[in-house]
Every structure is written in C-alpha cells, then in structure tokens.
C-alpha cells in the first residue's frame, strides 16, 4: 500500500498545512504541478520509495499530520537534486525538513542517532565524539600523535544561548 492509499481516509488539517507554509518562507509549494521531476531524480526513490511529488501533493491537500508521523520523511538523503530541478521552486527538500521539525516539535519519534548528535552539540559544541583511528598498518593514532592542534571547546556561555535557540518557538 502506498503512502497515498493509506491516506484515502484521512481528513485534511489546514492549520498544520499553514504551519508548514509559514516555515517555508514562501508559498511556492502551492505551485507544484506534479511534473515528478523531483521523484525521477530522487536518490532515495529506488532504495526507500521516497516520492517527493507525493509529499508535495499531500501537504497541499492538508494531510500534514499523517506525514509528520510517517517514517517516510526520514528517508531523504539531502542530495538536493529536487531543489535544483524543480521548475516551480517548490523545493521538496525544504518541505520534508519543515515536516521533520514539526515531527520533533510534536515529539513524534525521530531517528535516535540524530537526536544524539544534537545533544552532543549541546554538551561539547561538536556533533561527534573525537575518535582514535587505526592506520592501514594497524597503528592507533589520535590528534596528538598526528600532531594536530588540540580541539578548543566553545566558551561556557555557548550552552545557555544554544539552549535558548532550541527553545525559540518557530513560526
């Protein structure tokens, strides 16, 4: 059953649709005429059946709540080909990211690794943990042994301001 089939019984929610449009900083989305250029070039289409033109249509129909709780919005690879190629500037990538933001705001399940990266940024300033690596000759190396400069963490004031930014109510 495709994403569209599963929504045949759903009721449009225009308020949620308005929330997505507000985050897009423009109304180009309503100009989508379903030419499917986005889907024909989509990196995630073959692998995970992401069809950006369907996402566009569903948002335009007001079926936003269903999309927000669907796993499909987490399949985008962010190759940006759809943004580049859309003749209507209705950027599916930005629509998908607006849906992801709304999903997080509503506390719908988001990929754990992503949430972990964000809390890592809050803690250390970086999204990743500094790793030791192994050379092809099986020697363990780190920044120090490679004579790379020490990583300087953000000043203490950063954490409070970043937290404020995370709590800023989006449109």
């Amino acid at each position: 059953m495709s994403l569209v089939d599963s929504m045949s019984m759903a009721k449009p929610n225009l308020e949620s649709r308005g929330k997505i449009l507000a985050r897009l900083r423009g109304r180009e989305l309503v100009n989508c005429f379903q030419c499917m250029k986005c889907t024909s070039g989509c990196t995630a289409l073959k692998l995970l059946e992401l069809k950006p033109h369907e996402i566009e249509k569903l948002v335009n129909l007001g079926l936003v709540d269903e999309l927000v709780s669907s796993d499909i919005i987490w399949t985008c690879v962010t190759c940006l080909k759809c943004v580049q190629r859309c003749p209507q500037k209705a950027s599916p990538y930005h629509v998908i990211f607006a849906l992801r933001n709304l999903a997080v705001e509503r506390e719908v399940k988001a990929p754990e690794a992503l949430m972990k990266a964000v809390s890592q940024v809050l803690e250390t300033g970086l999204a990743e943990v500094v790793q030791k690596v192994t050379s092809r000759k099986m020697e363990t190396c780190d920044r120090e042994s490679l004579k790379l400069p020490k990583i300087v963490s953000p000043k203490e004031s950063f954490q409070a301001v970043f937290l404020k930014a995370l709590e800023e109510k989006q449109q």
Partner: protein
Amino acid sequence: MKTAVFWGCRTLTSQYGYELSVREVLPRLGVELVDLREALCCGDPVKSVNDFAANYLAARVLALANLAGLENLLIPCNRCHFTISEAKKIVEQDEKTGQKICGLLKEEGLKYNPAVKIWHVIDFLHDLVGLDNVKKTVEKPLKGLRLASHVGCQIIRYSDLGRVDDAENPRKLDELICATGSECVDYAEKLDCCGYHLTYSHSDSALSLAGSKLKALQGLGVDGLVVSCPDCGTMFDSKQKDAATTVGAKLSLPVVYYTQLLGLALGIPQDKLGLQLNQSPVDLLLSKISA
C-alpha cells in the same frame, strides 16, 4: 594570503587525513590558515530537529570568522559549506530571523558580519589561488594515473544559493585533478550521492548507495576516486568494506582526498598527508606514482 578555516565535526573527529593534507598543502600555495577561536558544529544535524537553532549555529561560525578579523572563511566540508551558506542567506534576507539570531550572538559578545565570504577547498584552489598557480606549484606530475572525481552534492546544489560549481556538470574538481598531471575520466554515476546523511536513519541503505557507486567505478578500471568532503570520504574510504557487503561485491578502489593527491604532486611525504590513515587500498595508487 590569510584565511580563516572552519573544519566541521567529521574532519576534526575522524577524517584526520583530510585535515592533515589541507594543513600541509595550502601553505605551499601561499595560504596561511587561521583556526577559529573554537571548534563548533555547523548546525547540519540540527536542521532536521530545529531549523532556527541550526541557523543560529551556522551564524555563530560566521561570527567567529568575523571575530578573527578575516573576510575569507574556508570550509573544507560540503555539508558545513551548504548549511552555513543557507544560514547566511536567511540571516541576511529574512529580517525577523536575522534580528533574532544577531540578538542571540550579541549575548556572547559576537557580531555577524555579512562581508565574510565562504569558500570550499575546490573553489578556493580553482578560483582564488587560481588553477594556473596550482599547476605551477606541481613539482612531481602524477603522469599515467586515470582518476575519477566525486564532487559530492551539497557544494553544487542548489544554484540559487550560489554554489561552488555547476549543479549538473561540475568541472572544477576535474580540472584540479588534471592540474596534478593525472587524467580524469567522466562517468555516468558522477553525480550519484555517497549516502552519508542516511546513516542517521537507514545505515544499510546509506552503505548501499556508496557501494553501488564504488562498484560502478571499479568496473571502469580507474586507478582511484578523488573526493573533497569528509562525509564522502567516510562513506567511500573508511566504510568501503562495509559498503562492499551491502552490494555483494569485492571492492578495492583507492579513495583519496583531493588535497592528498595534490600534496603528492607537490612532493610532500605520504605520512604528512595522512595517507597511512586511508582505509581503502591506496597503496595500489601510490605504487603507480612511485613507479
């Protein structure tokens, strides 16, 4: 020429070969790299969670470059380059968001300066240092090598944002590869994505994207793949073995960063370029150079 440099998380925490080679190669071309006061996330993983907070992080990077008093900011990572370019546009064009972000920066005594220019290694070398100057610095032309380029997604799309190269027919990396004396081949899968972003949610699919591209390239019989993004490097080099299992192929394709390749052509010793850290069989490529 002095330039600020923002590395991004991946380069600083695991892709040391990229950092080593950039730090080694650029000074030979007359560029002095100045690290920002702090290491910080560009905001990329935060984009999925909270667009405003992501743009704040990116704007903070630009404010740190301004604090260093430098107008050119080099960003060797494709994802960071995109995130910061998009935030720059938003801060400068969306007045309400821009004001809010500048307000937050002010709390830490930081100031956003629209004059800060963003560069990636590719356009920095090709356009600012200049392709001819790169050619002139080559001491040891890498004759006889047949290489393929992978420019990645986020430094070439989307064009409205002002990107490093053409979205559908990027040529700068190829020209830079040719400048080292090697041959650069064109291939059908050139614009295919490495899949990195999917590692957050669908890691097997991410690996199979990388694997399919490597498999196609191996079929072409090239001597190696040249990348210029730490995410692409992670997928094609560090995770090449894992990628091979997802596509059921035996992969043994040397993958190097462009700055590592250029470093070889400048006569810099391999260990100074971090080539011992590449996980793909780069010895296959290196033996052809010394032969």
